[in-house]
């Protein structure tokens, strides 16, 4: 196990280096003046200052020097210290009108909140559907699940999202888009409301404001529904085929031959083993949710990091988008590492491979 973890850890610097290089490479498409948004709020508008900007931030230095400065910070020509991304400087957001890192800090709790609430229905129902489909292989449930899954994977998130908005918001007025209603927003901003975790659903409960909690949840129902429906399709398919494969193993036949009840054969003998590959998928899906779901958040105007990245991208605010990408990349690399190690713990075959 130790060897496996070490082998997996050795990959970490490679990935970190690769992702930072990728982002840095994309930064090079920008003009020096645009790149100065990495260090100052107001990028110079005057054409004549380009020379000065290049000199000040060392954009004429060799590329590896620039890369290092971008990572670790440096003293510019005037002697002002300019922190790099390692010190948490991701540049200034033109569209957000604040440092990118502050924008991330402000938006990430919302994304986390949505991810936490979506994980439960996605995994629980997705697993149940997959196991049932496999147990009733080629029966009506299986066929129905299959149609459901194909339609699910054919529905683009934004089409599905717009359709549910049309039905549940525009027609029925049940579930509005956005984060919280205006009155609840005033409660959130009031002086006697304490922000413990920045997650609205948890904080509102800690503050004893059940009405705010329910309001926040009401705004999250449609994004959760959309994310679930889109993800169930994949989940169902993987669980089903893994379960089918396990049910065909000889030890399952043995259990049946011994006269173990069918319910126990499925729940106690087959299912635990069938769920091993599903664990990785679940891990990656959770990680994917943390990365901010760009399209879902945009459709429902949910203020998470995904919608912020999309808004910045459509305004061509590249420094902000790249900042989000960098943050995303770092979160995903670490989360993937955790998933891989957990997977090695669950399934001995993986760490020996």
């Amino acid at each position: 196990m130790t060897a496996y973890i070490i082998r997996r850890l050795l990959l970490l610097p490679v990935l970190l280096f690769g992702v930072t290089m990728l982002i840095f490479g994309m930064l090079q498409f920008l003009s020096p003046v645009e790149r100065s948004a990495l260090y100052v709020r107001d990028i110079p508008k005057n054409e004549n200052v380009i020379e000065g900007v290049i000199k000040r931030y060392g954009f004429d230095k060799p590329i590896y020097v620039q890369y290092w400065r971008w990572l670790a910070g440096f003293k510019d020509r005037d002697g002002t210290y300019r922190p790099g991304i390692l010190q948490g400087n991701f540049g200034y957001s033109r569209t957000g009108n604040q440092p990118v890192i502050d924008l991330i800090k402000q938006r990430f709790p919302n994304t986390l909140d949505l991810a936490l609430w979506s994980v439960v229905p996605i995994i629980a129902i997705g697993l149940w559907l997959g196991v049932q489909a496999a147990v009733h292989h080629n029966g009506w449930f299986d066929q129905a699940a299959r149609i459901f899954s194909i339609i699910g994977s054919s529905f683009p998130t934004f089409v599905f999202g717009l359709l549910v908005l049309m039905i549940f918001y525009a027609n029925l007025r049940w579930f509005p888009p956005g984060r919280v209603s205006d009155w609840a927003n005033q409660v959130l901003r009031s002086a006697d409301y304490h922000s413990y975790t920045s997650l609205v659903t948890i904080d509102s409960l800690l503050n004893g404001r059940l009405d705010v909690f329910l309001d926040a949840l009401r705004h999250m129902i449609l994004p959760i529904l959309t994310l679930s429906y889109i993800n169930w399709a994949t989940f169902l398919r993987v669980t089903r085929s893994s379960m089918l494969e396990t049910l065909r193993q000889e030890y399952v036949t043995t259990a049946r031959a011994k006269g173990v009840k069918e319910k126990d054969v499925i729940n106690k003998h087959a299912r635990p083993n069938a769920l091993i590959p599903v664990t990785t998928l679940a891990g990656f899906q959770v990680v994917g949710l943390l990365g901010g779901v760009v399209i879902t958040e945009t459709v429902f105007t949910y203020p998470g990091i995904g919608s912020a990245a999309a808004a910045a991208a459509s305004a061509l605010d590249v420094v902000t988008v790249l900042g989000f990408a960098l943050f995303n990349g770092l979160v995903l690399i670490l989360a993937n590492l955790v998933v891989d190690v957990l997977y090695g713990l669950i399934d001995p075959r993986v760490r020996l491979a």
Partner: protein
Amino acid sequence: MTVSQKQMDEVLPETIAVRKIGRLERFLGPDNYRIIKGLLTTPASIAGFILIALFVLTAIFAPYIAPPISKRDPYKIPRDGFSPDPKPLGTEWKRNPPPLPFWWKPIMKSDTWVHLMGTAAGQWDIFYGVIWGTRTALWTGILITAATVIIGVLVGSVSAYYGGLVDNILMRIVDVFLTLPFILAALILAAVLTPKLGRTVLPAVIALVTFGWMGYSRLVRGDILSVRERDYILAARVIGVKDRRILLKHILPNAIFPTLVVASLDVGGYVLSFAALSFLGIGTEIGYADWGQLLSFARAWITNLSTYWYIVVFPGMALVLFVLGWNLVGDALRDVLDPKMRGARK
């Protein structure tokens, strides 16, 4: 007891498993033949092929179904004035209508061209956008797929052929490109490229290609590694065939087929991603016939969607049916390719 010829014909094929091997099977080889045959005999995949064929026909005959105003720039959706409020379906086309399509008069007995699917904000005609959007979808989808497959096959075969350090480096590059979520990565690159290339189809296409090839290179690499171990390769090596010739003549043709089939069915997925980028506001200029952009018009009308439902429903259905067609074939393919599912109990 004598056995008649007729009885022989009935019994013999089953007893000694004589099977006629057709020309196609001989040409494709047994594995590839099984894939093609599986795809052409599954009802779901036939339905998928029919859907795809309908879209291809729509794309080919777009100039006749919805004639453009100017032949030179047919992808520009004609607009009927500039009013910000969408108009419902069946509204008469008032300002500067495009030529009447040939099929309209015999069916409707009328000379006035109407907005068949209504208009979006800014009076862009939705019907025209949906029809010509089919062309955009097909050619961008095929272009992206072809480019990603070429890059993927190139990287995958170089990786498998040289092995060792080269393989290691290339596969780590694949890992790096896989770190960022596909849509986010494509979104960034498209945003970076748009100021350089302008609001055309190109930035989104390049971005999707850049972050789309990795899966194929893994697939090709795996297939090459497994084909390499087969006996006929050993035989070729024993009689002294050069390495390069073994790779190009013996391994690649046999290893590449599953990848090509899988890839050809990804067209639906790429069209979906392209539409997603358009929807997010990165991509073609306003008024270009593309489904994602038509759908993005709906973003401004979320509270009134019950009145303006046609902005979502028509382009949305076109996109869903298009992707569904490819997915139906793709799903059948997965069953054919997955050896574990073969001969499953009924």
